Structures are given as C-alpha cells and as structure tokens.
C-alpha cells in the first residue's frame, strides 16, 4: 500500500502532509503528557516486530501480494496515538532507506496506514467493548476493527490515486482495485490481530489493559495472570 512519488498530484500530497503533521503534533504532545514510560519497551518491541512482519509477502488475487500492516494490533495494545508514532517510525525508515513509499507521498502513506490504519481499528474495537468487555466482543471487535481499518486505508489510497491527475482512470477504478485486493488483506490482518491478542493474553495479559480488565477465560490460565491475581 506504500504509494511511490509520482502517483499522487502535488496538491493531494501537500494536503495529506499537512493533515499528517497535525495528527503527529497531537500524538507527540499526548505521548509527552500521558504515555507511561513503562509501556515504551512494549511499544518498541511491537514496532520492530511489525517492521519485520511487513517483509513477509503472501499471494492474494491475480498474482499480487500483500503483507500485514500491524496498525490494528499496535492501536489495540498501545492506544491510537502511540500506534501512529510507531507506524510513522516504520514508514520513515522504509521510505528513507529502502525507497518503499515516496517522500512527497509520505504524508499520504502515514495518513492511510498510520492514521486510518490505527484509529479506525481502535474505534471499532472500543465500540465493541461497551457496555462491558467480554471474550466475544474483544475478539470480534479486534477482527472487525483490523478488517475495516485495512479496507478504509486502501479505499483512501484509491481515492487519492483516483483524484490525482497523474492517474488517468478516475477514482472508481482505483478504489475498486485497491479495495478489492485489500479486503483480502483485511481478513488476514483480522485473523492475525485476533491470534496475537490471544497469544499476548496467554503469556502477558498484564500488557493488555482491556484483557486484564476482562479475562477471556473464566479462570486464571497463565502464570502471569495468576501472579496478577
């Protein structure tokens, strides 16, 4: 989903740079004021893991490939603003060192994968936790959040491509192409997000505030949970 330079018109690139910078300013401000430094090792570890996970390309439709984005699980475990910072670090290193995504289109890439790809999964997940988190709500919320986040990011990328004068076929074709392919990616991302949540719950439930508050099983099943209790 990394858009290279030359695919978007300069106006769209500039607008998305501005939107992204605004979100990042708020994210850094919030991190400075509210992020607990005890969560930093988790944040750094997950960021490195998803940088590595993005190197695994699996086949989808018509000979194309896809990879996990990681935004949903980052948002659920860290909150959306730290997740945005984590995704921005990944995208910065990919663009600067590997040419994966452009410099002019960097704002668009952060907007799609860092903002939409984290805030939508988090909002959907949070919606499912009301009035009280339960096992089914946690898992369904995580899956749907990841799916919708990936699809929304792809549709946004399609709209950006479609409305750019550099792309001759208009937004409908671009949105269809991006949305169709990335709905497959969304399903895989959804399953991966649920699986990672289940693994984290088993080994370190203390790292997941919502899971620690609402155990997935009826009794304490892991050593870490027993220690907590």
């Amino acid at each position, binding site marked *: 989903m990394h858009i290279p330079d030359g695919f978007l018109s300069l106006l769209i690139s500039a607008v998305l740079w501005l939107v992204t910078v605004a979100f990042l300013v708020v994210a850094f401000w919030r991190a400075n004021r509210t992020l*607990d430094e005890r969560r*930093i090792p988790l944040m750094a570890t997950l960021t*490195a893991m998803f940088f*590595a996970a993005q190197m695994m390309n699996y086949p989808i439709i018509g000979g*194309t*490939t896809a990879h996990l984005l990681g935004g949903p699980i980052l948002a659920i475990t860290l909150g959306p603003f730290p997740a945005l910072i984590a995704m921005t670090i990944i995208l910065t290193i990919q663009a600067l060192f*590997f040419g994966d995504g452009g410099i002019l289109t960097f704002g668009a890439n952060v907007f799609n994968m860092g903002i939409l790809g984290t805030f939508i999964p988090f909002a959907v997940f949070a919606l499912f936790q009301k009035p009280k988190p339960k096992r089914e709500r946690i898992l369904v919320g995580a899956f749907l959040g990841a799916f919708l986040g990936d699809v929304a990011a792809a549709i946004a990328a399609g709209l950006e*491509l479609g409305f750019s004068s550099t792309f001759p076929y208009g937004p409908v074709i*671009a949105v269809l192409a991006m949305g169709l392919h990335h709905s497959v990616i969304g399903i895989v991302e959804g399953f991966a997000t649920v699986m990672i949540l289940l693994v984290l719950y088993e080994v370190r439930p203390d790292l997941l505030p919502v899971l620690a508050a609402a155990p997935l099983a009826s009794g304490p099943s892991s050593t870490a949970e027993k220690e907590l209790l």
Partner: protein
Amino acid sequence: MNMNDRLKLIIGGLVVAFVFVGVGVFALGFANETVDAIERLFGASEWETWFPPLPGYALPGFEGNAVASFLVALGFTGLVLVVTLGTMRLLTRRPKGQGKPSADDHPLSS
C-alpha cells in the same frame, strides 16, 4: 514491569522478528503489491525524488543475495527498535516534580 521483564519482552519480540525476517527474506520475499500492479496496468510511473541507499531492501552489489538481504533486514529491525526506544524516552522525559502518569494511560484501561 521490572528490568528483567522488560528485557524478556524485548528479547522475545526480537526472536519473533528474527523469524519474520527469515520467512520474509527466504520464503515470502517476492512482492507485487496492488500499487505495483496499478503502475504496470494503467501506466503510472514513479518519480525519482529520492535515491535510497538500499533500494528494494537489497545491499548495493549484493542484489539477489538472500543472506545479505537477511542481514540488512535484521540490522534495520534492530534500528527500528532503538529509534523507537530513543524517541519515546525523549518524548516521555518529564521535569522533576511533574510526576509520572499512571499505568492506566491506555484509553481502554478500566
């Protein structure tokens, strides 16, 4: 979380990342993303605005060498970890007396 737990977490994460990099480079390295397909099908073309030092995750002179790509990927996974740790440590540095936020800074904490 004490220092021992933090180290365990980071080492565990790096082991998983090591596996991801290995699978990514040696088994699932071929990439043909939707944007690449659009580029070919619809005639869009990239602009050369930036010349990255390691284009396509390959070490110059060692293109197609999976071991070199693996080492590059591992090194940069470590770099991502260090950059994130450093950036967040700087961001969360607070003046004395201001105090720390509670552990429940996550929006969904109960």
